[in-house]
């Protein structure tokens, strides 16, 4: 096969079309990412809260932490738990010293018993409320303990970096 045949016109045009397609995909991806950031900010803020100006979503993507939103007095972390039976997103509110203030499950709490129990336990976090006992607590406890440790470490690193 000679070089001329390899770079034939259809191949050249197809390559150009693919590159143009990739460029369009890139632009659409940037638009989608901006929209997604707005959605994530709205989801992370407590229901009914007014969005302060200059808020910026920051992706972390260190499993299970998706990203964070820094408020003047606290930091909101969005975590995604990819569990064998479910996929649960939760927002953790941390004080600047890394102390966990509260947590809540994002979206509907309908679903498997595991999801419902996780929502119940997270809802009681930081408030010391009575959350009862469940057979699922054995697998939920290490998950939350690990998340708490990870978030307090991340928050301390963030505060140190800022200072």
């Amino acid at each position: 096969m000679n070089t001329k045949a390899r770079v034939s016109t259809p191949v050249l045009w197809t390559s150009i079309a693919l590159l143009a397609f990739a460029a369009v995909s890139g632009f659409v991806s940037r638009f989608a990412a901006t929209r997604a950031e707005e959605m994530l900010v709205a989801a992370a803020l407590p229901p009914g809260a007014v969005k302060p100006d200059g808020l910026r979503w920051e992706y972390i993507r260190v499993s299970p932490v998706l990203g964070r939103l820094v408020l003047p007095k606290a930091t909101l972390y969005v975590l995604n738990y990819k569990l064998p039976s479910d996929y649960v997103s939760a927002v953790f509110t941390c004080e600047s010293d890394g102390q966990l203030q509260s947590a809540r499950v994002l979206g509907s709490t309908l679903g498997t018993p595991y999801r419902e129990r996780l929502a119940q336990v997270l809802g009681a976090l930081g408030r010391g409320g009575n959350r009862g006992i469940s057979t699922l607590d054995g697998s939920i406890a290490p998950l939350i303990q690990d998340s708490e440790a990870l978030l307090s470490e991340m928050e301390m690193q963030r505060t140190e970096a800022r200072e």
Partner: protein
Amino acid sequence: MSQIGLLFYLGMGGSILVSQGIIPLRPSHARPAGAVRHAVLMIASCALATPVYSFVYQRILSTLKLESLAPFLVALAYFSVVFLMKSATSLLKGAKKNGKDSASAGSSIYPSPPLVAYGCILAASAYGGSGWNLFAAGASAALGFLVASTVLEDIMDRLELEAVPAPFHGLPARFLSAGLMALAFSGLDMSLYARIG
């Protein structure tokens, strides 16, 4: 679910697809010795692909807000690797054999790699994975493949001696057996998730 669990199921599913001829695989690869070779290749490929993808996704794509282009980059990388491997193989085989091979070249770009690539791509997408995580991911994919290609075959042979209801003969029995094995793995995955997920 954790990436580790997912890879296990994928390895398992992949093996079923091979047995059904959906994923073309050389017969030698389907035999136990071939399956072990395939499993080792899977661990090695996952170990290579994960840090690269993780770095590109987090440091480049995420920063430029181009996350949706991830599969495009994966496809480019995959075809480049296949092309390089083919070129290296034909170089090693020499010019004489190369002439013979070119007759079947049209189909040779999609034979055995899919299953390995499959595992790689998935392991790679576990962003933020630690060294242990990526090894576990590759190992579980390999384990899934091995389990399905050895244990599942034994179960199917054994089931031929049993009075399985007619609608469950063949593929449904295979899915059912794979599902029950996967369910057992779910427990393991669940207990591992909190530690290394």
